[in-house]
């Protein structure tokens, strides 16, 4: 079972190298690596569910000297989400990129990105995290620039600079931690870290760097242009997975490794910024003229919800209430991953059919593509947080924890944010009803439409109905 940890990093990496060596088979290699990695992710999830946290010291080197890979419930779930989303996007990309040259350029970067994501989620020490963060950032930037247009390149460049800035701050924080504690291993640090003048500047630096990468308001400015100009499968993965990886790190550092050092005021600050993200992101999404911009701003908003969990988690004493809320956070993050990826893939289909993604002119296209419009609707349901999506359960936990800790202001923000999300979702869906041409059957382009539909369905239905084991998994793998 612990071998799965190695396969998860090695398979996509080997696939990336293979696509460089065999550019003409690039498409097939992507799908093959994708399937293999997904199976390894499934094995990992199963392993963590049955045996608890898994650990693999690469090369047999002990901790402190070698690189250790570690998986608990949280990382196993995120690895699974990464695998399913990336697989769906890979299937879609095989139809999106229709020339061999495009595919040959796309494939190695794509698989490198996947490698970096897996390695980041499974890393057990701070420096490995830095390296994987950089790998993630570089491959993401290169993919974002694949769009080719001047706007895409400019957005990619800004993304790169912001990412580098963030990484440098992160590394500065890592160096302070090493100076203070002499170890970079996360498990070891979790035992010895305590509140103090060493940890606070270090945690602040690392968090600042990560907040830049996760696009928390007001550091979100780079995200909408980058995600909106990238090719559709890339946008899907950027919004669903890449920013989630940085968020995962904030989560890991704040709730796990440096839990003792976190103060209520700091958590409240994160929550406040999150609330700003929810309101500002939702507002801008409502005003967006283009579908991709709408989706990008929606990401900013949805990440805001995730950050609003921090102050309530901080205020709850360790125990079942806290576990419930933490599980709500995870299921909300997972649902957003699937929903946003599905949304971007659906937008990609629309954009390729009609040559544009302007919302006001959607009428004919939305009716010509009923399955894709339904995928948008499913994603929208999950973004709003309506039942039976996983986001409903997640928002429920946020509301319940806010009521329980008396921090009622998060409730107001959540309510307004959800209503704004409904407004911008149904603004788009309203175009699906009209007098445009209607095909004789629902799904017209299988390879392009099914990935979006399945992702949307997972977010809107599967996670909500089958989500109960998540809480047991998080506890078992803790």
């Amino acid at each position, binding site marked *: 079972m612990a071998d799965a940890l190695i396969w998860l990093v090695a398979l996509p990496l080997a696939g990336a190298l293979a696509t460089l060596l065999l550019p003409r088979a690039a498409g097939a290699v992507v799908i093959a690596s994708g399937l293999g990695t997904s199976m390894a992710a499934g094995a990992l999830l199963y392993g963590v569910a049955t045996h608890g946290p898994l650990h693999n010291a690469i090369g047999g080197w002990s901790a402190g000297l070698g690189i250790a890979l570690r998986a608990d419930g949280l990382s196993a779930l995120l690895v699974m989400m990464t695998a399913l989303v990336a697989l769906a996007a890979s299937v879609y990309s095989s139809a999106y990129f229709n020339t061999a040259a495009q595919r040959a350029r796309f494939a190695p970067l794509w698989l490198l990105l996947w490698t970096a994501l897996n390695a980041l989620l499974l890393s057990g020490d701070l*420096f490995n995290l*830095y*390296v994987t963060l*950089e790998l993630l*950032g*570089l491959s993401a*930037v*290169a993919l974002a*620039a694949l769009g080719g*247009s*001047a706007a895409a*390149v*400019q957005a*990619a*460049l800004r993304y*790169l*600079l912001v990412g*580098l*800035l963030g*990484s*440098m701050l992160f*590394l*500065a924080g*890592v*160096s*302070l931690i*090493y*100076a203070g504690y002499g170890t*970079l291993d996360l498990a070891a640090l979790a035992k010895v870290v305590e509140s103090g003048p060493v940890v606070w500047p270090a945690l602040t630096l690392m968090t600042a760097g990560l907040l830049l990468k996760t696009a928390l308001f007001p550091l979100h400015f780079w995200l909408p242009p980058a995600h909106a100009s990238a090719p559709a499968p890339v946008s899907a993965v950027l919004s669903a997975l890449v920013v989630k990886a940085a968020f995962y790190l904030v989560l890991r550092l704040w709730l796990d490794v440096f839990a003792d050092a976190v103060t209520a005021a700091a958590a409240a600050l994160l929550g406040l910024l999150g609330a700003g993200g929810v309101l500002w992101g939702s507002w801008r999404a409502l005003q967006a003229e283009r579908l991709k911009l709408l989706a990008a701003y929606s990401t900013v908003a949805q990440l805001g919800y995730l950050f609003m969990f921090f102050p309530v988690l901080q205020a709850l004493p360790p125990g079942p209430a806290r576990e419930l809320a933490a599980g709500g956070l995870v299921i909300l993050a997972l649902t957003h991953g699937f929903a946003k990826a599905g949304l971007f893939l659906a937008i990609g289909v629309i954009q390729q059919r009609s040559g544009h993604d302007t919302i006001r002119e959607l009428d004919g296209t939305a009716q010509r593509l009923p399955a894709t419009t339904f995928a948008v609707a499913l994603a929208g349901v999950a973004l709003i947080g309506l039942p039976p999506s996983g986001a409903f359960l997640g928002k429920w936990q946020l509301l319940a924890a806010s009521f329980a800790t008396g921090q009622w202001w998060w409730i107001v923000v959540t309510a307004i944010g959800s209503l704004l999300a409904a407004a911008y979702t149904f603004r788009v869906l309203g175009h699906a009803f009209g007098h445009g041409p209607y095909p004789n059957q629902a799904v017209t382009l299988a390879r392009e439409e099914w990935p979006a539909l399945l992702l949307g369905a997972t977010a809107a239905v599967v996670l909500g109905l089958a989500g109960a084991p998540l809480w047991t998994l998080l506890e078992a793998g803790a």
Partner: protein
Amino acid sequence: MLTAQWLYGLTGCLVVALGLRAALLQSALLQRIVAVNVMGSGVFLMLIAVAYRGPGVAPDPVPHALVLTGIVVAVSATALALALVRRLHAEPGDG
């Protein structure tokens, strides 16, 4: 020598701060890229200072490894950034 370690470390912090300031305030792309590199150098200085273990004792190899890795990463990232800048300026009129 304790004072040398502190000197290196604080200089590192100062360089990071200067680089950060330049990265945030500069508007020209090339200057920003250089500024981020300067930030990187500052962090490396900090790491080298952390590696010091006392007079006559071999320094801690772990921070040195971190610095080497960091330099490699910084070089690759700078290369990508410069490639993108070139691509940007290869399309006159689109800005």
